[in-house]
């Protein structure tokens, strides 16, 4: 296809977050422009990232040829065939020497459904390694584990996001939507106007400023707060007893633990006053339409699964989930964070959101793939464990990375970068030389969103068509071509690794048929025709499922399950050496590790560098004035950051955005302690100290 054959204006979606705002890409001979397009999820809204996204297409650092590092030399351009041959040869050698388990594959929540599916198939069929996982392990896995336990399925919002517009009260826990997905806020307008928006966040975020009630728990104590609110719901008579009796199980065991979190004890542990606890629950209970929504702030903890379960418990006690006009949801972050966790790029999972150790699922998928069931590896290492095993004897020797940048995004990032340098082979697919690509042995230049077709599943479980608006630069191919190119060179038949998105989508539908996330009734054709399709959609004549659980939960007896969870303090606590809590998060102008957004002038101007947000008294006592450069240090490393005063901060807490590279990485500080169930790291609470940065460069990896 050539440029002349493409429409001048293409209806597609924004490349960034999970809201997936409707967007029009206009291509003229002079330039490419983006503007918002009327779409339910965003109305007509779009944030600065979307408005400026076209700038990334023509970014100066754009890679247009594969790069290969031979020996200790620099990365040098190579032809696609040479680069793929090289990678396949090295993989073959490494597998021959160390076995298939020495290869790891990391995918991403920004990849299309088609890519996510093929990443998993590459690992399990072509490489035959169990070690495939994705960066969503760092964000969505706690919510996924908790909601699968509670509801029997994990769809971020099991209702259309536009339903929120009818809400009188919304409890937003650890979600800063005003910063991370601004057009989402318009759906909260009614709740905001009714003073019914309750925000739980240790800091006075942009979203907290919109709230009628802001609860500021000490970092890491969300679970105590959730238990306290459940306690108040019971003692103040707000439990929906008929709902609990008829639609749930396990209340008594959950209550036995929540009973120990009477409001006064909860206040002492969390810093949220008894009066505010009571008010928050009353607002939710008395609203006609009420929702509980959680996000990374409460999920990214070393007990994140239990934390989410505690918020789900509260929603169940109030009778919200699976009832029209109310509910519980988790706000997915990455563009395809939802689809990315459904199609088999997770260590424990096969396409269709099925478990890799479920014999029925294995047989089904083996048949679709045309391989023996025994040939499909079992459960593998999770994302952090793959990174942590990199370069170790008996660990991961070769790693393929698609659509993620762990050198910046992983917890304890300084150590992870050291591990990756020990690999025998690191292969990265990206559109620029990301921080991870810089240390790779081979880099493949791949297409960006406006240059490809594919599907993404947004935060509400609606499958969307991403449309190709212009040709990629010469020399750039899709991740699907990289995957197929490697697989074929490892001896796989080409038809088993198709590169046409529509064909891959049809196959992933077959592979996932009968699973919880059933796409088998969907097709690119139906999406092109403008159908609004939410999974599950098990047959071509099925209209999809905008609202799940209304008739019951996919669990025994159709009943949702309470989880008996209790609070535990974070794995490290503040003390003399590290007296402050640090928490990390996002800024409006940037997305994830900034690989895209740090290349847009307008965005870097708005947010040029990392800063540390701190209460003026806390800063002053550390000898710091506004605008000074501070050294923030944890037990793992130091980050150099500009001081920003924020009187709304707790005295014991500082905040750093994590989008920035090198010595500005917030993740040099964070604790890699993992949740026992979801394997999510605790990004949101680590102990630090604050002092003036006296060096000129500032910061160090360790």
């Amino acid at each position, binding site marked *: 296809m050539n440029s002349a054959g493409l429409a001048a204006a293409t209806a597609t979606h924004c490349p960034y977050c999970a809201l997936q705002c409707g967007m029009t890409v206009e291509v003229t001979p002079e330039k490419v422009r983006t503007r918002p397009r009327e779409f339910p999820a965003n109305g007509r809204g779009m944030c*600065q990232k979307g408005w400026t996204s076209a700038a990334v297409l023509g970014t100066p650092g754009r890679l247009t040829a594969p790069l290969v590092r031979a020996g200790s030399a620099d990365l040098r351009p190579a032809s696609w065939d040479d680069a793929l041959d090289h990678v396949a040869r090295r993989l073959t050698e490494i597998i021959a020497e160390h076995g298939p388990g020495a290869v790891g594959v990391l995918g991403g929540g920004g990849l299309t459904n088609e890519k996510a599916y093929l990443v998993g198939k590459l690992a399990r069929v072509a490489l035959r390694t169990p070690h495939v996982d994705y960066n969503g392990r760092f964000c969505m896995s706690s919510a996924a584990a908790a909601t699968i336990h509670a509801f029997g399925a994990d769809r971020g919002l099991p209702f259309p996001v536009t339903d929120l517009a009818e809400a009188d009260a919304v409890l937003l826990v650890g979600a800063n939507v005003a910063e991370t997905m601004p057009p989402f806020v318009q759906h909260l307008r009614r709740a905001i106007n009714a003073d019914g928006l309750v925000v739980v966040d240790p800091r006075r975020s942009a979203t907290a400023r919109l709230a009628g009630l802001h609860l500021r728990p000490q970092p890491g104590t969300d679970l105590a707060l959730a238990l306290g609110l459940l306690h108040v719901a019971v003692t103040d008579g707000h439990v929906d007893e008929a709902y609990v009796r008829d639609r749930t199980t396990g209340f008594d065991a959950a209550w036995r633990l929540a009973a120990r979190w*009477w409001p006064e004890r909860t206040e*002492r542990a969390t810093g949220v*006053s*008894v009066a505010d606890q009571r008010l928050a629950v009353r607002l939710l209970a008395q609203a006609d339409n009420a929702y509980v929504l959680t996000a990374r702030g409460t999920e990214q903890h070393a007990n994140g699964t239990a934390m989410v379960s505690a918020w789900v418990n509260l929603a169940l006690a109030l009778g919200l989930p699976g009832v029209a006009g109310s509910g519980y949801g988790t706000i997915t972050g990455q563009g395809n964070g939802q689809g990315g966790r459904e199609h088999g790029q997770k260590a424990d999972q096969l396409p269709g959101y099925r478990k890799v150790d479920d014999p029925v699922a294995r047989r089904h998928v083996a048949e679709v793939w045309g391989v023996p069931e025994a040939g499909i590896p079992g459960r593998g290492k999770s994302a952090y464990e793959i990174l942590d095993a990199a370069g170790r004897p008996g660990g991961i020797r070769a790693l393929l990375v698609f659509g993620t940048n762990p050198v910046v995004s992983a917890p304890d990032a300084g150590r992870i970068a050291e591990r990756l340098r020990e690999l025998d082979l690191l292969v990265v697919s990206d559109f620029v030389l990301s921080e991870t690509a810089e240390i790779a042995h081979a880099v493949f230049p791949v297409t960006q969103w406006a240059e490809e077709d594919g599907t993404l599943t947004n935060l509400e479980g609606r499958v969307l068509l991403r449309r190709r608006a212009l040709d990629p630069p010469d020399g750039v191919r899709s991740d699907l071509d990289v995957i197929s190119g490697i697989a074929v060179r490892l001896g796989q038949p080409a038809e088993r690794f198709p590169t046409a998105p529509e064909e891959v989508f049809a196959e992933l539908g077959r592979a996932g048929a009968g699973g919880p996330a059933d796409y088998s009734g969907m097709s690119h054709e139906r999406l092109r025709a403008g159908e609004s399709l939410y999974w599950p959609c098990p047959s071509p004549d099925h209209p999809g499922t905008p609202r799940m659980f209304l008739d019951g939960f996919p669990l025994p007896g159709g009943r949702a399950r309470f989880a008996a969870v209790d609070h535990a303090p974070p794995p490290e606590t503040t003390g003399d050496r590290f007296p402050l809590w640090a928490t990390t998060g996002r800024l409006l102008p940037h997305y994830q590790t900034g690989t895209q957004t740090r290349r847009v002038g307008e965005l870097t101007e708005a947010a040029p560098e990392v800063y540390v947000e701190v209460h003026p008294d806390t800063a002053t006592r550390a000898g710091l004035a506004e605008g000074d450069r501070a050294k923030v240090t944890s037990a793992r490393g130091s980050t150099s950051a500009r001081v920003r005063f924020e009187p709304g901060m707790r*005295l014991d807490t500082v905040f750093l955005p994590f989008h920035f590279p090198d010595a500005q990485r917030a993740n040099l500080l964070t604790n890699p302690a993992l949740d026992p169930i979801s394997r999510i790291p605790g990004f949101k609470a680590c102990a630090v100290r604050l002092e003036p940065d006296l060096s000129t460069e500032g910061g160090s990896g360790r």
Partner: protein
Amino acid sequence: MTVRKVVIIGYGMAGARLAEEIRTRDPEGARVALTVVGAEAHPAYNRVLLSSVLAGGLDIRSVLLHEPGWAERAGVDLRVGVPATRVDRVARVVELADGTRLPYDAVVLATGSNPWLPPVEGLLDESGRPADGVVAFRDLDDCARILEAARPGAPAVVLGGGLLGLEAARGLVARGSMVTVVHPLGHLMERQLDPGAGRVLADALNRTGVEFRFGRFARRCVPGSEVELDDGTLVPAELVVVSTGVRPAADLARDCGLHVEQGVVVDDALRTSDPRIHALGDCAQHRGVVNGLVQPAWEQATVLADLLTGANPGARYRGTPVVTKLKARGIDLASLGEVHVELDEPGAEVVRVEDPTRGRYAKVVLRDNVIVGAILLGTPDAAATVVQLFDRGLPAPDDRVALLLGRSLAEATTVNPADLPASTLVCRCNTVRKEQLVTAWNGGARAVDTLVAETRATTGCGTCHDLVSAIAGWLATRKPAPA
């Protein structure tokens, strides 16, 4: 590894928690064989929640600490309804009332405390138990008796204006009783409050319907009818709730010759004078302090479980900062640390805000910029923040008054577009500052929609729409700048 035989005497909040903590560390019973002995017939319950039961928020079943079958699943030999009668330290055997002899390697006394009843005529019946219509507000059975007796309009007297007495009074008033609290001293909760705070609290409770008689004590009680005070006045009382203090239950310890002062004396490893016998909770006296609160007991349980299972032989208990919170609906009161400090005491900084009209009284005591005591009444924001700063010994914020007032210091909500600095961020979603709107206006964008088209303001979340409109309105009407 040999399995140690541990016997916990007492199945209340401390004993039950200790059993759980031990099983968390030793789920299979590989290190500790655990027996728990409870004198009361019913299972362990959460005593803290009794005031919620009284206030009507919980039924009695909801306060049980364990589900039926817990002991069996947890591998605990639980014996309830059988008091321990003796600890034979020579034979290392605990003897129970039914004749059972339990050999031990370690014993834990978790016997709690008993209510102390003042010597008032008529309070006790012939058998020495509280007479009909007289209840000590202490255990689950007391709670049930109070609930039975509380009726709308029925007069009740609470003897004792301490924490529990006031919680009982508040609960009874919520159920419609006519309550009079009789307190022998001049102000309420005299250990936790100074006179000023005590007065404000009395006023606040009085507004909910509780009456007070200060500086008086009961001389005679006619059960089911009335109480006669020391000045001869009669107060009608179908129900008398006695809340005049508790005493550690230390008889077992005393009888077997352990060192007992107010309570059973323990060291930082919660050992009594016999290192094979430990004590925790209300019956124990640690560093001279007998605690009647649950938080210290639970922290002690953590330490003791570490020691008894060997999970952390270095674990020690070093005390818990005391924070008292009144659990009374509609009244927010916290008291912590040193509160009886006068404004002029050298070395101390005392900040006090009194607002009796609105039932507020806030006092913090600081030394070297650290909060060492506080009374916070009617200031929930301050209470929540101060308690955390106090617990962790963190420096207080410089603006003490803002700390005490919390959200009462409202943020400015109305803005005049003319007064905003040019650099004010108007649209966060698209990083549009006021100056860009002014520039666009001057460049010909003379309406909201053209300003939007030019700057992209309002096109994200839409929250700034009103402000952009206000700025447009201001731009349209502002006077031209002087030449």
